[in-house]
């Protein structure tokens, strides 16, 4: 038995953990539950380590079949559930299970005393299992199952604190964004993305007749290919050429013909042959089809990895408990999109050569641009936020943009490298932020017990204390030293300061952009490079701002003044993550590039560029300047002006508002979606529909009036919330109108049947009667 046969355990152990907790959890103490959950996470990490060691020995991996999932030999459907062990999936497993384990441990402390402690860990284990299912799947459908399941867990965990919608009556603490709304929004926005992904899967199935990725590629790829070709699988195929060739991928008419090897090898073969794909009665060139597939996949990526234009759910998702933000919405789930593109590198590279889109863009270029623009935009927005977790959320979006841009540029190694280091330092930052919030809440309770009502009135907003608002903090350096230090390390890593992990990975991405521009002469490369350098500068600046605002200066509230350090179970994982964030750069240290070599086994288009000292120095210098600016603005003087404004708020004026209001995305949605609808509603409302009164009653009139009244309301707060809810509401209104047809009268129903009868008869008979 090979070590790779252990791979099913990596999914089944967390499932066993959650079943155990679901079953006997209610009889156990918090400690018992915690042991089971963390034990399960830790064990699956050990399995991942074992797999990693097996691969490090030079083997190229294995596909481990689990069960015949969907099999219909008669019609040629065979979708097994098999797990794929190669360097790419093992990288993801190590990151997911490793970071996941640390966050589990941290959560034991963070969730201490929560009424639904057990439930929380059941969800967490479920998430771990689903995410591991996603990364181990050897075909698109299994991947999709995992993809949906992680979305579901995310939904459950965002809404976990549903009772936090209202301020705590005693201390006036509020829980931030409305949890249930945030959960719904995340779910619905993700469905939009999934929709693209489903279509991509259907198209793939249709073209290739299979959903399997194909044999493990890498060093042994060519040999394996021949083996399949000479094997008994395709003996019976009539098109077999005499020369021992495999089934020709193309029929004499130039139509692509699936050979049953797996999607990626077939895609390469088809592209090489330049054949056409039969879609119903039409024939489409394979290149066009791959472009469409990759673009549809990009829709899925923008949903899951929070890119423009579907990023809007992620900031609100911060309503969930902080360990969830760390695990799901920073370190693992949101990187699934990056993984998806990397996994499909063959398709994306194939699409790169097809020039059918305007401006000579190819799908990977679009991926890169989406990523780069997202990175830049989110970086600027983060500068003008008050909520500690919101800053980190936008920072996450920005960093995901870096990764997406990297994979779009073909820098798969750089993207994955940044994915791993980002998992370390972003998990660290979130957990440390959670530690800060916990400390401030604790301080608020403390102040409430000892001082009269001061804690209530001392919050930034009258009467309520938002423990996540950075304006309520300050001076925490002394009260929470461990948290302070790890936060600083995380911030340095994120800002890309030498020698922390972020420096190395970000530098590789910039290098890829640079090379794309200079060597391939691709203008996209230059554009991306400029955007990313800008984003990196903003990153350094807002992290500096955040650190100074939270930890330096004088405490701005009683709560901050009474904050205290958290127990070791929360701080130890932080220390481990801090260590990883410091040393993570060694993974792909220039000169050796161990990570690049490792990934090349499973990612055919992986490559690692050589370290460019000049570029690194430029990037470092820019980051340094940004940090220095932050020092000048937020450290030399108190971080807030005397009337509680940000130091930049007055000088920047409208620009600040622009940034604070997220580049007016809300307003854009308002103008692009809601306003036209509104106008249409008004127009229709003014039409005289009296002649319909008997039939549709006040249907149209009242309905559109109601829509108009709803849409004409106040849009100042949470407009995107309303867009999401609004689209739902509009559908609801439509539904409300449609049901006016349901009058309850038998005769009406019979009339509908009769109408149907005639419609059916006419459709069937008209061509016959008039056709001749």
């Amino acid at each position, binding site marked *: 038995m090979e070590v790779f046969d252990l791979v099913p355990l990596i999914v089944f152990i967390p499932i066993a953990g959650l079943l155990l907790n679901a079953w006997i959890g209610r009889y156990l103490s918090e400690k018992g539950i915690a042991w089971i959950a963390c034990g399960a996470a830790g064990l699956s990490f050990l399995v991942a380590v074992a797999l990693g060691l097996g691969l490090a020995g030079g083997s190229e991996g294995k596909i481990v079949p689990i069960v015949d999932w969907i099999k219909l030999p008669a019609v040629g459907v065979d979708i097994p559930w098999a797990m794929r062990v190669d360097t790419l999936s093992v990288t993801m497993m190590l990151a997911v299970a490793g970071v996941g384990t640390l966050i589990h441990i941290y959560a034991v402390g963070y969730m201490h005393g929560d009424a639904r402690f057990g439930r929380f860990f059941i969800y967490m284990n479920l998430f771990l299992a689903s995410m591991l299912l996603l990364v181990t799947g050897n075909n698109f459908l299994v991947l999709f199952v995992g993809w949906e399941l992680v979305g579901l867990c995310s939904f459950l965990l965002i809404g976990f604190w549903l009772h936090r919608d209202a301020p705590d009556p005693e201390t006036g603490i509020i829980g931030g964004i409305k949890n249930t709304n945030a959960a719904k929004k995340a779910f619905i926005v993700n469905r939009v993305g999934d929709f693209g992904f489903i279509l991509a899967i259907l198209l793939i199935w249709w073209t290739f007749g299979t959903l399997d990725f194909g044999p493990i590629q890498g060093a042994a790829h060519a040999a394996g290919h021949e083996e399949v070709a000479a094997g008994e699988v395709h003996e019976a195929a009539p098109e077999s050429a005499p020369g021992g060739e495999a089934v020709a991928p193309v029929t004499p008419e130039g139509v692509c013909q699936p050979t049953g090897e797996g999607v990626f090898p077939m895609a390469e073969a088809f592209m090489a042959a330049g054949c056409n794909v039969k879609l119903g009665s039409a024939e489409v060139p394979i290149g066009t089809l791959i472009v469409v597939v990759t673009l549809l996949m990009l829709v899925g990526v923008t949903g899951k990895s929070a890119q423009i234009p579907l990023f809007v759910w992620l900031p609100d998702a911060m309503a969930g408990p902080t360990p969830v933000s760390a695990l799901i919405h920073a370190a693992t789930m949101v990187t699934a999109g990056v993984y998806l593109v990397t996994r499909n590198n063959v398709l994306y590279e194939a699409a790169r050569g097809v020039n059918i889109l305007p401006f000579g863009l190819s799908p990977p270029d679009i991926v890169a641009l989406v990523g780069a623009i997202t990175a830049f935009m989110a970086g600027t927005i983060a500068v003008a936020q008050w909520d500690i977790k919101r800053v980190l959320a936008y920072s996450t979006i920005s960093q995901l943009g870096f990764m997406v841009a990297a994979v779009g540029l073909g820098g798969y190694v750089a993207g994955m490298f940044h994915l791993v280091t980002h998992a370390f330092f972003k998990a660290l930052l979130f957990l440390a932020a959670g530690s800060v919030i916990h400390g401030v809440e604790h301080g608020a309770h403390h102040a409430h017990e000892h001082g009269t009502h001061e804690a209530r009135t001392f919050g930034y907003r009258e009467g309520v204390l938002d423990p996540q608002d950075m304006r309520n903090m300050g001076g925490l350096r002394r009260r929470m030293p461990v948290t302070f230090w790890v936060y600083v390390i995380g911030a340095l890593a994120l800002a890309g300061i030498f020698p922390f992990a972020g420096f190395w990975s970000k530098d590789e991405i910039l290098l890829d952009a640079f090379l794309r521009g200079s060597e391939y002469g691709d203008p996209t490369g230059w554009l991306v490079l400029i955007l990313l350098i800008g984003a990196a500068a903003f990153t350094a600046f807002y992290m500096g701002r955040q650190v100074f605002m939270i930890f330096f200066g004088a405490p701005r509230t009683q709560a901050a003044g009474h904050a205290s350090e958290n127990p070791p179970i929360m701080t130890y994982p932080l220390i481990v993550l801090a260590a990883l964030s410091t040393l993570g750069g060694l993974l792909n240290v220039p000169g050796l590039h161990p990570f690049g070599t490792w990934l090349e086994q499973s990612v055919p288009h992986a490559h690692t560029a050589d370290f460019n000292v000049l570029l690194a120095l430029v990037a470092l210098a820019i980051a340094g300047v940004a940090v220095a600016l932050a020092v000048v603005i937020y450290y030399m003087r108190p971080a807030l002006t005397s009337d509680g404004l940000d130091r930049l708020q007055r000088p920047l004026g409208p620009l600040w508002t622009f940034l604070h209001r997220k580049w007016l995305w809300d307003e854009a949605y308002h103008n692009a979606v809601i306003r036209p609808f509104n106008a249409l509603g008004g127009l229709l409302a003014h039409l005289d529909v009296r002649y319909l009164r008997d039939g549709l009653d006040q249907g149209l009139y009242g309905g559109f009036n109601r829509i108009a009244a709803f849409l004409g309301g106040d849009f100042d707060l949470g407009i995107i919330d309303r867009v999401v809810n609004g689209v739902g509401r509009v559908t609801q209104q439509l539904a409300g109108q449609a*049901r*006016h047809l*349901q*009058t*309850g*009268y*038998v*005769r009406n129903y*019979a*009339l509908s049947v*009769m109408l149907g009868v005639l419609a059916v008869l006419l459709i069937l008979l008209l061509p016959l009667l008039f056709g001749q």
Partner: protein
Amino acid sequence: MEPAPLNISAYVVLSAILFAMGALGVLIRRNAILVFMSVELMLNAANLALIAFARFYNQMDGQILVFFVMTVAAAEVAVGLALIVVIFRTRRSINIDELSRLKD
């Protein structure tokens, strides 16, 4: 019998007319019993078509089908009239337009 029997189409068209009249009755009458009677008219029209085709093919199959349709109609009548009686007891009316509590 006559040397040149009537073309079968005539019977079928007549049955279509009767059928449509039955359907019309279902759509315009408000008395549940009459609605039901109109359904009987529709079945009856279908039977006429069946018998006509059975004559055309000189077969028994069509006639047997008529037999089944009649039996089924009898079963429907038993249930339908029982339902109507029950409704009448509760509501003192069999106007189907008053039976519109169930709607959105």
